[in-house]
């Protein structure tokens, strides 16, 4: 299983700081710095807002990524546990947008764009860093296993041997 970032809608306050930080990280410059206003604003996650709930949604780094499977040019590949777009190969055909079950990949400026966990950023994912509500969690395989053990112990889900 790959690591991925997920946000807790109960914590999210809908401020959209994550979108701004993501766009800035993707553009490689601060949108608040001089000249930053001209940077292309292409966040790789989207704040979904409804009356009752808000939550940012981004790529789940599927182990059997449908976007990678459908890509006619082989431009989407797994690189060290992250589903990664090779912009040089991408032709912008949008097949990945059709295939994604989460709606977390987009074609912007003729190239596919998606969350790549800010692997090139020493500080880690920009969205997590700026979120004032600490709504984001970086989920790793061991995190999920630990959570499963905790829930079973708390009687929140049946033990494996109790399943029909």
């Amino acid at each position, binding site marked *: 299983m790959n690591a991925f970032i997920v946000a807790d809608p109960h914590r999210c306050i809908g401020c959209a700081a994550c979108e701004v930080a993501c766009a800035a990280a993707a553009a490689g410059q601060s949108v608040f710095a001089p000249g930053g206003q001209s940077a292309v604003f292409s966040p790789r996650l*989207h704040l979904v807002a409804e009356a009752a709930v808000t939550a940012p949604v981004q790529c789940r780094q599927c182990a059997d990524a449908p976007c990678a499977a*459908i890509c*006619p040019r082989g431009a989407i590949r797994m690189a060290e546990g992250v589903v990664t777009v090779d912009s040089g190969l991408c*032709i*912008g*055909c*949008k*097949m990945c*947008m*059709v*295939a994604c079950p989460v709606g977390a990949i*987009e*074609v912007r400026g*003729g190239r596919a764009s998606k969350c790549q966990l800010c692997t090139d950023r020493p500080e880690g994912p920009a969205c997590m860093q700026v979120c004032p509500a600490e709504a984001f969690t970086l989920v790793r395989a061991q995190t999920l296993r630990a959570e499963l053990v905790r829930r079973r112990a708390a009687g929140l889900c049946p033990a494996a041997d109790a399943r029909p």
Partner: protein
Amino acid sequence: MNGQQNVIRIDSDICTGCGRCKDVCPVGAVEGVQGTPHSIREDVCVLCGQCVQQCSAFASFYEQHPACIAEKKRERGLFVSEAAPLFAAWHTGDAPRVASRLAEGCHSMVQCAPAVRAAIGEEFGMPAGALTPGRLAAALRRLGFDRVYDTNFAADLTIMEEGSELLQRMEGAGPLPMFTSCCPAWVRYAEQQFPDLLEHLSSCKSPQQMAGAVFKSYGAQLDGVDPRQVFSVAVMPCTCKKAEAQRPGMEHDGVRDVDAVLTTGELAAMLRQAHIDFAALPDEPFDRPLGSYSGAGNIFGLTGGVMEAALRTAYELVTGEPVPCTELVYVRGGEGIRHATLTMDGRTFRVAVVAGLQHVRPLLEAVRAGTCDVNFVEVMCCPQGCISGGGQPKVLLPFQRDEVYAARKAALYRHDAELACRKSHENPQVQALYREFLGEPLGHVSHSLLHTVYGQTR
């Protein structure tokens, strides 16, 4: 362009310039540098709509303003309520226009091409290959068409006319090989690229146009209405059929054979708009007489189908005996070109089936050079014939395409095998039409109604 509208277009607001339409275009009509919006050369485009089938670049819900989407839907001739995404490559639509004409209460007659009944179910969640002739007839009736007829009837009629024309040419009355003229994209290509070979094209109108001509003559007579009052609609798996209906020469006494053409997808949209639950409809028959058909007429929807239908009849006309096996599997070609021979009355009959317009050029060059010894050639522009036409339900995922086309194909062959009447000349209603109205194949009435002149377009 003969004043015809440009049926196939690419929306530069949506096109990402991925170039896959360029790869699939059989005539090299798409131009553009990768990464920038592509465009279509109207003088080369044959309007087959394969680019429309291939295109996956759709208007992002994040980037497009909803008002802009509604405006685009109007421009494309779609119902604004239609929920499907807007793709960059598109064909002009006629469903809102047809719906309003029907609401006005004209005397309407509709025909339905064979490939539609093998695919429209997909638009309503049925599996690929669901065969729905009965539901299709019921659906068209629910939409308010006064006469629900069938293009398959005219396909049988085409075999009578085209088969007779071929036999006449074999007697020395015209140049060989003779090429079929049912596929309008192929006709456009011949007119654009090989105008010197047009005399090789059969003079027959396509089944769509033959049906329209019969609607507004014999059909109007049966209903006791003025042909000018008849609103003639065709439901087709094809985008080029829209342009064909507007061609010069596709009229009789100043009355157009076909007034409007809907694609399979557009008919599905009309049914959704009218809240008709296609999957829940009962099976109903097509109206008679112009809705009865043989299995031979039905396989016109497949590559090799016209050839197979023609040979079933030609064999009997030439030898006076029934064809030894009805299923002529050797002409059931896939993509590319297939040659076959059949011996009739001691004479060897050579045929060729071309599926995919990009494969026809070598054959035409051979005809030009006088080195082609084939008698009869069927040409279909689309890779698997009409079942894979540009107006069919879109198969978006490339890996599903072969599977879906195979299922549609199997459905049409199954339908043929299930029908009691499997040869065009045995269709009793076609026989009655000749007895009561047309006289004989290639006769005076059929010549004026069912044949046309194909000519250079540029």
